[in-house]
């Protein structure tokens, strides 16, 4: 009785929502029979079934493509490249800190050297100027300088 009522309802109403499961054979025997009966009478559902079937068949057509014959050759080349890059980066990882340490040491040494060179003439200069001033006082006393101004 229930199935009779259900199939009677199916006659009047479109069953679009069941069609994908009908195509995939996932309906119960009872429901499948009812769908088939409805399809005999409903042109719209038949048309949508054909539409759906056509679209879903695309998956069948495009799956399992032919893989490029050079797939492994390309992969192997990429693997070699990657290994080489890894070895290079290992070297870079070791060489970089060593290089920067050397630059730093050279900078400190250079700075010290320059500093020591720059300080000695200054001291000499200061000494000579003070000596000169002393000598000036000795040669020309302040009293005679002031008298000379007058």
């Amino acid at each position: 009785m229930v199935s009779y009522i259900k199939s009677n309802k199916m006659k009047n109403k479109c069953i679009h929502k069941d069609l994908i499961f009908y195509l995939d054979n996932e309906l119960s025997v009872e429901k499948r029979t009812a769908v088939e009966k409805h399809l005999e009478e409903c042109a719209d559902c038949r048309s949508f079934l054909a539409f759906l079937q056509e679209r879903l068949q695309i998956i069948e057509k495009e799956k399992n493509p032919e893989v490029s014959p050079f797939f492994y050759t390309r992969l192997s080349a990429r693997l070699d490249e990657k290994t080489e890059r890894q070895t290079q980066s290992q070297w870079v990882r070791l060489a970089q800190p060593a290089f920067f340490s050397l630059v730093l040491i050279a900078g400190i040494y250079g700075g010290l050297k320059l500093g020591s060179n720059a300080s000695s003439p200054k001291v000499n200069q200061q000494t000579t100027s003070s000596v000169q001033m002393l000598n000036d006082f000795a040669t020309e006393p302040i009293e005679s300088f002031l008298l000379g101004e007058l």
Partner: protein
Amino acid sequence: MDEAQLIKGIQQGDRKSFQTLVETYQLMVVNTCLGIVHNKADAEDLAQDVFLEIFRTAENFRGDAKISTWLYRIATNRSLNFVRNNKRKRFFQSIEETFTGGRNRTSEISENRGDQPDRNITDEQRSDLLHRAIDRLPEKHRIAFTLNKYEELPYQQIAEIMEISLASVESLIHRAKKNLQEQLLDCYKKKCV
């Protein structure tokens, strides 16, 4: 050469074992990626990335799952990442087009299709419609659907790959098909392709 020997060889850096693995599984990996990215060249590039990752991380393989399960997991993850990055790129491109005044050509084509009842529908347009519908599925639905349709895997194996229960896989595939059917019905009613 069995799976354990193959993995042991790869863990020791043996190229011959790696080549055997690649030749055995390359079609499976390319097909899985193709189901998600829908472009053969991209699928092959992604498959190469999958095998490179296998070679690099072989020492982490504990052997409690099959090699194919491991490959399926990496292939689906990488493909989904690829699709996400592409979406992001397209999003920024569309913003750029908005500011530069350019129109998105694909949307223009699909809008015009409904106005041409006697149009000559090519296979390319049909597959484009199906791909767009699959791409709109939530990620988990998409993985389950792709593994089931493209790889014809049984629900139990899909459950192992996705690390979920069998009932969840059944539900995911059921909802994916329902969603896909709704999208296609919508398109059928609008007579888009």
